[in-house]
């Protein structure tokens, strides 16, 4: 079959037409741990436009690939809920193992890797069949979860065991462990998949691990003038797509550290709300949003200018945040 040039053009305009809804304002979705709700923020007006009732103690949230579905760890309901983003209704409950806290979605859009905090387990769920594929023994209080961009490795951090556990995705088996600082919280791969950044909340450090050797190759320390070192407790990590800048949320120090990844030096500390937890970029990476547990708000950071521009009140104990 041949395609005439005219048809090509119209196909292109059709594609544009289809894209049009995506051009509507981006929204940030925030889980409120102590309110059992999700707040939806319109990023054009910077206002909360909707508050959605969900399961008990919602923490980790994540969109599927085309962002039509939102997966929600409803920790105290012992389930992962699936929300249809269009209708904003919960359409399914996935088995999750007990007390799901954080999770990661495999690039295949099918496997959810879920940390079961109370059970020292990682549960792998197939979102298509709604079934548990595998449960893998990990350390005490599994927390952070991430899947490598190539989809070959899943990693989990365990808060009391103080390790990163490496899981071979093909075999769904644990293959190695790397000791890191006290109470590791969050794990984040760089976009090229060569490094894994892991925050240690009580250790006060971020370990940068070489994925090939699974050895810690750099350990970042944070120092804020006038701040007692024990209040500096790294949790969330976000790294720009070009890999040049990393942002580290420092918990009760109420600051976000900006790290230049080439020199591995902290170039700035930005004051945000109280007990800053997790973060998300907008799609163009011009804005970074943080959840602030104690002040119950979201801070908006202007990324090019490294300036905190606004805070938006959400529910009680905002925890996870994602942008679509």
């Amino acid at each position, binding site marked *: 079959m041949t395609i005439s040039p005219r048809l090509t053009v119209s196909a292109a305009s059709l594609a544009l037409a289809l894209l049009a809804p995506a051009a509507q304002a981006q929204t940030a979705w925030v889980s409120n741990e102590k309110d059992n709700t999700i707040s939806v923020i319109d990023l054009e007006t910077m206002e909360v436009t909707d508050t959605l009732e969900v399961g008990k103690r919602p923490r980790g949230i994540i969109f599927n690939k085309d962002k039509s579905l939102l997966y929600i760890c409803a920790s105290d309901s012992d389930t992962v809920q699936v929300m249809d983003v269009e209708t904003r209704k919960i359409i399914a409950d996935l088995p999750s193992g007990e007390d799901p806290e954080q999770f990661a979605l495999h690039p295949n859009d099918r496997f959810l890797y879920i940390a079961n905090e109370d059970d*020292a387990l990682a549960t792998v769920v197939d979102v298509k069949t709604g079934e548990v594929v595998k449960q893998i023994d990990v350390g005490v*209080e599994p927390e952070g979860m991430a899947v490598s961009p190539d989809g070959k490795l899943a990693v989990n951090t*365990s*808060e009391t065991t103080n390790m990163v556990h490496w899981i071979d995705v093909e075999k769904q088996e644990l293959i190695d*462990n790397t000791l890191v600082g006290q109470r590791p919280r969050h794990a984040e791969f760089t976009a090229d998949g060569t490094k894994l950044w892991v925050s240690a909340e*009580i250790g006060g450090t971020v370990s940068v691990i070489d994925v090939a050797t699974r050895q810690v190759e750099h350990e970042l320390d944070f120092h804020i003038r006038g701040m007692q070192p*024990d209040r500096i407790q790294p949790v969330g990590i976000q790294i720009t797509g070009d890999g040049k800048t990393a942002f580290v949320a420092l918990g009760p120090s109420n600051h976000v550290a900006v790290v230049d990844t080439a020199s591995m030096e902290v170039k700035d500390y930005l004051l945000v709300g109280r007990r800053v937890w997790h973060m998300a970029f907008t799609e163009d990476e011009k804005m970074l949003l943080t959840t602030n547990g104690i002040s119950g708000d979201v801070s908006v950071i202007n990324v090019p200018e490294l300036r905190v521009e606004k805070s938006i009140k959400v529910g009680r104990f905002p925890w996870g945040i994602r942008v679509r």
Partner: protein
Amino acid sequence: MLRNLLQAVTATCLLCLPGLSQATLSIPLAYLKLETESAPVLSNILPEPEDAGLQGVQLAISDSNTTGRFLKHEYRLESAAADSVAALITQAQSWLEEGIHYFVLDMPAAGLREFAAHFADEPVLLFNAGSRDTGLRSRDCPANTLHTRPSDAMLADALGQWYVSRKQKNWFLISGSRAQDNGFADALRRTAKRYGITLVADKAWTFDTDLRRTAAQEMPAFTRADDYDAVVVADVAGDFGEYVLHNTWLPRPVAGTQGLMPLAWHRSVEQWGAAQLQKRFEEQAGRWMNSADYAAWAAVRSVAEAVTRTNSAEPGGVLDYLMSDDFELAGFKGRKLSYRRWNGQLRQPVPLVHPRALVAQAPLDGFLHPETELDTLGLEQRESDCALFVR
């Protein structure tokens, strides 16, 4: 009389990993409890659980084995309780000969001194998880001994910080007559001096009335004074203290061993991941975790953290690591815990609680210290004659 509280718990290597071919490293520990006759108290509603302390050790062993299985480290526990220190020493001696070097001790100060003196020249590491006695941390400084239980001085300072931050600096102190009461009352007096708190009264409770029936008559008269901001009670066993609340001459809060209490641990502590520890504990023990459990838990977790990081179970190396700047323990209190080198005391935040809620957690904002804010609680190095592990 000596009895074994449990058979040795042997954890199996649940997950023998490829690439880790070294032999399993075994780390045996022992828990020893001196059974003391508890004095009769007026209020007999809530007795201390019999397995207080032991359950904390068991949970720490199980937490450590979950980590250990990835490293081929295997923690084992022996435990014994007896009504004489001599019997515990004999038991510990034979365990030492079998290769146990770590002993978690739950006994009053006098017993601990005797026990530690016996093992002063042995390759052991002792953890005091039971006694709050300030003298152990300031004068006696028993050899090879670390203290995971907060001292009376730390607890009293936590309370002092609360009242100073509320600008309520006039206390009416009532103390019982038992040794532990005196210890805590002395600590409260030290705190008062340190923070400029005025003791408008400092009275000993010596009556032997059955207050369950007469508290309403006795207590108002006993607490009569022009004014005070709080009634502070030193009644560790919970004898008369339970009857002070709501029976004071002036309508004032009660704090200390009753009312608003500074403790090492309480069910209401749930921030900083503590909810998970509480859940694990309740599942195992079928009851709430208390201060004795927490101190015992922290002792085993300290050893395990050192073994994990150094890959050695040799007590000298473990002690060196515990006293180094590298050691930090995640103790579910929002700050990293470490040991004071001069007296072996575990630095730790102190929750201030009432029976159903956490009120605050010391150190409170505004109490500063050049080293760490945690050192605003308890004895400073200059207040202590000890120089145990100062190199």
